[in-house]
């Protein structure tokens, strides 16, 4: 699912959207209540970041509208200047969190992530990627070169573990205890079997993604450093 934030006003404050872009969120800016419907993405808003510093009246009107909806837009983060802090008391019910401008970009990132987490949406899906390989830890999907892989649970877990530690060599025993988590029926040879199955599913072209390290074990790809 794409995360799409509503940002007020339009044009959007550059320091806000720069951070959103950096964190991989989508956003759309609006400057009035009227623009809301047209700008709304199909899957709805993930949340809203409203900067009240320049036009607080319009900003609160927008917040009120967002909260009045059948499905209120949450979470709602307010950016206010220090002199506006008193004003916030009147509108407590209209927002979930606030930040004082000027802000540090890391603070915005942290607050957005924490708000999404509090809203039970766990921030962006957690991904493990290596090259063309993407593993979505939330949906258990594995995609290689844009092609979804049909993996069994243990194949997925093994690939996830290897991809999370690119370039690192693991012995069969280490993989067994890290991935299977216990002395699995079949012993260390189970690892060989699963690696071979994974390679067959990755396809000939990508079979070498998981490399056998002679008399040691396996690794996925090269280290990034």
């Amino acid at each position, binding site marked *: 699912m794409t995360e799409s934030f509503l940002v007020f006003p339009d044009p959007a404050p550059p320091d806000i959207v720069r951070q959103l872009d950096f964190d991989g969120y989508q956003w759309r800016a609006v400057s009035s209540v009227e623009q809301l419907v047209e700008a709304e993405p199909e899957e709805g808003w993930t949340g809203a970041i409203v900067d009240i510093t320049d036009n607080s009246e319009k900003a609160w009107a927008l917040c009120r509208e967002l909260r009045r909806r059948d499905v209120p837009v949450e979470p709602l983060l307010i950016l206010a200047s220090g002199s506006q802090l008193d004003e916030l008391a009147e509108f407590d019910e209209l927002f979930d969190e606030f930040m004082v401008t000027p802000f540090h970009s890391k603070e915005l990132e942290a607050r957005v992530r924490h708000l999404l987490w509090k809203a039970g949406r766990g921030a962006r899906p957690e991904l493990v990627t290596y090259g063309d390989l993407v593993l979505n830890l939330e949906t*258990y999907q594995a995609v290689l070169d844009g092609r979804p892989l*049909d993996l069994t*649970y*243990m194949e*997925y877990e093994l690939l996830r573990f290897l991809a999370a530690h690119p370039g690192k060599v693991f012995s069969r025993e280490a993989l067994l205890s890290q991935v299977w988590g216990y002395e699995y029926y079949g012993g*260390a*040879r189970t690892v*060989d*079997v699963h690696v071979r199955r994974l390679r*067959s599913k990755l396809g000939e072209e990508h079979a070498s993604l998981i490399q056998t390290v002679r008399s040691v074990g396996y690794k996925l790809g090269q280290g990034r450093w």
Partner: protein
Amino acid sequence: MERQNEYVLRAVEERGIKLIRLWFTDVLGQLKSVAISPVELETAFEEGIHFDGSSIDGFSRIQESDVLARPDANTFETLPWAEDGSTGRMFCDIRQHDDSPFEGDPRYVLRRNLSKAQDAGYSFFVAPEMEFFYFGDGDPSHPPELLDSGSYFDLTTSDVASDLRRQTISVLEAMGIPVEYSFHEDSPSQHEIDLRYTDALSMADQIMTFRLVVRELALERGRFASFMPKPISGMQGSGMHLHLSLFDDNGNAFHQEGAEYSLSTVGRQFMAGLLHHAREITAVTNQLVNSYKRLVMGYEAPVWVSWAQNNRSALVRVPVTKADKTSSTRIEFRSPDPSCNPYLALSVILAAGMKGISEGYELPPELTKNLFEHEPAELRKAGLQPLPTSLAEALDEMEKSELVREALGEHIFEWFLRNKRAEWTSYKAHVSQWEMDRYLPSW
């Protein structure tokens, strides 16, 4: 809910699976399937699926007919050829109404034997060589139509059968069934696909899947694939040689540096057990009347209970392995054919081998001569025993076997004997074309 189950539920949602087939196997090794929709899946995991077992060969007697299919989440795969890949499948364990294991379930029988071996510290690994024929159709009323005239290792380009084999391999690989080799076998239209070793339970599941994939893909192209052990008189039959090894905490228990053929004492004892009980387990590894038409002299099928390192007429072979590949030391058991129930066949094979270990059987001397070149009388004199020559003889041997009774459990042991005796009785009363051709003109 267990994470595996959750994973499957997620996968079904994410991959747009519309139908889930729950697979299990009857006592004769026929694949059975119950289809459920994704909305029923969670209940299937939690409670299992109830069905009437009395309609399944070898399952319940009428008074205890209700059984429970519990899907094994570890076996979830999509079926790449079926309905745009929107069909998934899982193998099931069959349980009794009160959720205790069901004695008539072949998968349970194998699990039970594997866990016994596990208690002794061993896990059982298997790699089969699957042989089969492609025919024009599956109509038994006329002789099978061969699709090519190739022979062993022939590279017959652009023919239908080789295309089919290639396509089959890519489907198998996509389903996580890695293929080791594949080639054109000895006879015209005969093919072999060798699967890469895995633990015995997964392998039994894979063999069931393999037989279905091969047949389904052939049907899609208007052809017919057959695992009948001896479909054509005068040609090689189809076998299912099994490469076997045991692993323990220290690795391959069959391997011993410096030993003859690198084969450890455990390996030799396992092989001795297999040879010692070979005649008793043959009814299970070769379960059709037709199976015994493959096990005859003059073809590359074993006839005598014997072993050798590199002699293809022996019942058990010790394949040559690279000196540095300790994990590949193994033995090859050559009598089974692909019509067997893989769960039951692997159960009795494991039981025979484990008996050899627990009793410390002595391995008889290696047979180095080519058995094909010797007269039966000569071989008997040398103390060699033949494998059973008919289903009836094999059943007699099985009936006397405590080992097979224990390995299969009372339920399946009794049912199998009854069912197979009936098959033999029906066959025995049949007057064949051979008899007409041979006797009618003169008598």
